[in-house]
Each structure stands twice: as structure tokens, then as C-alpha cells.
């Protein structure tokens, strides 16, 4: 594991990375970093440039300009040294079908420089961590999609790398398998820097310390989910279930906060309607909304703040980017 005395500030750093294919710019001047032991989610719609960025960081693709470093080693100038600190699981996780699970992991351990007398121990350890022991003698060709993904993750963990890049690690897995992989990823926090590219936003939200959101080859937002929520979703919304009309609710809400607005969402159950009530950012009425509405004489069953999830943050960030692009 990392020697803290020699630990660099960033386990992984991308500085103004750009990748062009002819006239097409796949990735444009993106800069971000991952601290040692941190788990970062890498989000973006299809074609945003996530896989291109991961391939540049893994040394499988040369950037047109910019700098990528892994544990202080330049990926372009010193690829062998950078790869010693890095494990990369590509999106489709290609595996040789004619090898058995243990054979494959032993081969990869040797290639990654694990000491000969530690190989068996390390392979046993990662097979245990990834729940692969029962399938150690199976041919990879006979494994299900979920177990192939586990083999990919086991391979990534083999040499105790400083940095792990995972491209869609849970794609095609069933819910039980996703939970297992999620727990495994959580267990890496503090031990390895992990960059996870995923489309499954709730998963990223539950596992990652920070997110980097990419759109059309550029970073449109990055930071902790809480900070992004505050930045991108400043207007708190509340879901209100009440036995009243929209006009009555709006009147009551505006008596508490003149800038409040409401929209009817539909019938909750006979006699009760569901509304979305939006207050201006920083409104003091937010702290005692329920009491205020009840005081106005409305029959209220439920008031719940709708915290924007990562999905809302992602949509807000990409929409803001599209607006800025149109404006410029």
C-alpha cells in the first residue's frame, strides 16, 4: 500500500487533457484530480468523453495535449511506472475465454509484478473479496456476466494499486450483484483512489465522495454532491399532501413567503391532493412550513422536502452547459 511519506497530493491528476480525432474534439481541456483513498464518480451522457478520458489515464490512448499523472508519474512520458500504480477495468471487461479464473488472475498478478511467493496469497485474497472462490477452476467462457465483472474487479485489486479506474463496473449485473460490488467499492475507501465511470447515478451517489460531470467533452460540474446540490439546485421544493385546492394552498403559502409558488401533481387518494411547493432560495418560511400552513387553516397530511438527487444535479449541470453553449 501507499507509503504515506512519499504520498503525492493527488493519486490521479488530469490537467487540461484534450483529445481530438481530426476535427472532432472528444475531450476538451478537462482538469480534475483524485486524492489518495478517495472515490470519485465520473458521470456524463453517452459520447461525453468518459471512456476516452479513462483510456488516456490508463495509458491506452495518447492525449492530443494536456498532462495525465498517476501517483506523480506521467502516463505519457513514463507509462510503465504509471501502470505499476494503476489498475483499469475497461467497459466491456474483455477476458480470455480459454483460461480458468485462477489461471487468469495468476497470470495478471505476474504481469503486474506481484512477487512470486505472494501470488497465491493475493489471488486467494481477491477471489475471497470478490466472492469468486467457488468458481476458481471454471473456464472464464462459462462464467455469467456478473462473475466476469467480478473477475475484472478482482484483477484490478490484485496488485494493491494506488489508483483504480473502473468503467461501468456494474453494467449488466442483477441487484444482488450490484449490492455486492457496491459494498466492495465502499471497502476500498481510504485504501485506494478509485475513479468510477457509471450511468447508474444512485450507485455513484451512494459510493462516491465526489463527482465529476462531463458533457460534450468538457467538465460541467465537479465537487461533493451536497455542494453541487446547493450550487445547481438552489430552489428547495416541498411535496405537500393537503385537502384543499391549488389556489388555497398558494394563498396560504404566500402569506408565509410572498415568493412561493405551487403546482398540483395530482390526487394522492380520495379527498387529498398532492402539490409541489417551491420557495425562493434562503426563505425563512422553509423552517416551519408545516406549522405555518396548518395555522392558515388548511388540512395538511404531509410536508416533505424534495432533496434533489444526483440525477437532478446531473440534469441541471448538463442543462446549464447547454444554455451557456447557446448563449456563447
Amino acid at each position: 500500500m501507499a507509503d504515506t511519506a512519499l504520498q503525492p497530493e493527488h493519486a490521479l491528476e488530469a490537467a487540461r487533457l484534450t483529445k481530438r480525432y481530426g476535427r472532432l474534439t472528444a475531450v476538451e481541456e478537462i482538469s480534475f484530480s483524485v486524492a489518495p483513498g478517495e472515490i470519485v464518480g465520473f458521470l456524463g451522457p453517452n459520447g461525453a468523453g468518459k471512456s476516452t478520458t479513462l483510456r488516456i489515464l490508463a495509458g491506452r490512448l495518447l492525449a492530443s495535449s494536456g498532462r495525465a499523472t498517476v501517483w506523480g508519474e506521467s502516463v505519457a512520458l513514463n507509462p510503465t511506472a504509471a501502470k505499476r500504480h494503476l489498475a483499469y477495468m475497461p467497459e466491456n471487461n474483455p477476458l480470455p475465454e480459454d483460461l480458468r479464473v485462477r489461471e487468469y488472475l495468476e497470470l495478471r498478478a505476474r504481469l503486474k509484478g506481484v512477487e512470486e511467493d505472494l501470488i497465491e496469497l493475493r489471488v486467494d485474497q481477491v477471489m475471497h473479496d470478490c466472492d469468486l472462490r467457488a468458481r476458481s477452476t471454471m473456464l472464464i467462457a462459462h462464467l455469467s456476466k456478473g462473475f466476469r465483472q467480478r473477475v475484472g474487479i478482482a484483477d484490478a485489486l490484485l496488485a494493491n494499486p494506488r489508483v483504480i479506474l473502473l468503467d461501468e463496473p456494474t453494467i449488466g449485473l442483477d441487484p444482488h450483484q450490484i449490492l455486492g460490488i457496491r459494498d466492495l467499492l465502499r471497502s476500498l475507501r481510504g485504501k485506494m483512489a478509485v475513479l468510477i465511470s457509471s450511468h447508474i447515478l444512485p450507485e455513484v451517489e451512494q459510493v462516491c465522495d465526489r463527482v465529476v460531470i462531463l458533457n460534450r467533452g468538457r467538465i460541467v460540474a465537479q465537487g461533493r454532491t451536497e455542494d453541487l446540490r446547493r450550487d445547481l439546485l438552489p430552489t428547495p421544493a416541498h411535496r405537500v399532501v393537503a385537502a384543499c385546492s391549488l389556489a388555497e394552498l398558494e394563498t396560504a403559502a404566500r402569506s408565509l413567503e410572498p415568493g412561493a409558488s405551487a403546482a398540483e401533481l395530482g390526487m394522492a387518494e380520495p379527498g387529498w391532493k398532492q402539490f409541489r411547493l417551491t420557495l425562493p432560495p434562503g426563505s425563512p418560511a422553509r423552517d416551519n412550513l408545516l406549522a405555518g400552513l396548518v395555522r392558515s387553516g388548511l388540512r395538511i397530511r404531509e410536508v416533505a422536502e424534495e432533496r434533489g438527487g444526483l440525477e437532478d444535479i446531473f440534469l441541471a449541470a448538463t442543462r446549464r452547459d447547454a444554455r451557456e453553449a447557446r448563449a456563447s
Partner: protein
Amino acid sequence: MRAFRVLLVHELRMTWLSWTTWASWALFLALLGTIHWYAVLACSRTPMPWTPAEAVFRWFPLPLLCILPLLTMRTFAEERRAGTLGALLTTPASAFAVVAAKFACTWSTWVVFWASFALFPLIASEALGASADPRLLDTVTLGGGVSFIAVSGLLHVAIGLLCSSRTRSPGLAALMTFVCLLGLTVSGGLIDALPSDGWEWLGWMKGPAEHLRTLGHLEDFASGIIDTRPLALYLTGCALCLGLTVVNVEAAD
């Protein structure tokens, strides 16, 4: 160096565990055994100016064109198709180590195939006993021929690897290798075979083509003549092809 050693052991293991290697070897031995059998029969009927082993080596383009593409076609094409080549290069193993390991494995397999041909003269000699012509076990021809195969095989195997690194289809790789090896083997003789009238403008090619006369190189080797020019041709050709293969592998997705 460690990556090369690990990959070489892995490649050798996978090659000799693969049924296609054993099928290729069986085909190779059947082909050479048949040629040797007919050469022995011909020599037993009428005294010939050549030995059965020489006859077999003169037919060497046949196994070269039919068997070698079978050995080289899967080296990179199969891995590119499956995507495992890219995954391999995410480890500290360099593209050069990967190419060198695959080359060493395929070349040594090709030499083992040819070395196993020595069994036929041995079997024939044992079967005929005291009546066997001592030229049947002509060790100079056998040693020279296998040495030539080993030296020329450097270029031939490198061509096969280069073709395999250019495509994701093993079948297409085999076809490309066949065409390249056919061109290399027959081009020297073709220029010589051109009629003198109407083809004078190609006269300048006769000199360079002379250096490509593969069968001439074989005869020199088999008679113990070591000419450095074909050696330089095979070694530089091999280095060029392997260099291009490394470039292809680095660029492979």
C-alpha cells in the same frame, strides 16, 4: 524482461495446449512424410543426384504457405477481436514485450515442427536396416536445412505476426500471410522466368531479386555455405516487421 518471460511461458503453454497447434503439426508431418516417402521410393528405383531430405527441403514453400499462416493467424487477430490485447497493455507489460513473447513462441514452435521432420529419415533408416543408403540420414543436409528454416523463419514468422496485428479476423490474417509469403518466396524466381524480349525495362530488378531467391539460400545453407547477405536480409526484414507490429499493437484498440 520479467513481462517477456511471463508472457513467453504463457504463450508457450497456450500454444501447446491448443488443438490447432497439434492439428497443424499433424498436417505438417503428414505433408512432409508423404514427400519424404515418395522421395525415398524414387531414390530406391533409380539413383538420384539428391537425397530424400534434400527433396523435402526443396518443397519447403509448401508447408511455409500452408502451415505457417495457421500458426501466426491467431496471435494478435484473435486477441484484438476479443479485446484482450488492450487489457493486456494496461499492465506494466510493454507492446514490445508482448510482440517479442508471441514471436519467440511462434518461431520456436515453427522450428520444433521442422526439427521433428528428422524423425522420417531416422525411421526410414531404422526400417531399412543394413541395406539403408547412408545418404538417407544425411546429417549435413538435415542440419543445414533446419538451420535455414530457423534463420528464414525469423522473417517468415515476423511477416505472419505483422499480418495478424493488422486485422481482427484470424482468417484474413492467414490469407494476408499466405499472399506475403508467396510473394517473398516466388518473386526472385519470377523475375528470372520473365522472357528477355519486351521486359528489358525490368532488368534493373534482376539484381535485387537475386537476393530474394529463397530456394537458392536453402541450397547454400544445406551445402554448408553461409552467405551473410541472406542472413542480413532475414534479420533486417524480421526487425522491420516486428517494429511495425509493435506500432500496430500500440495503436490497437
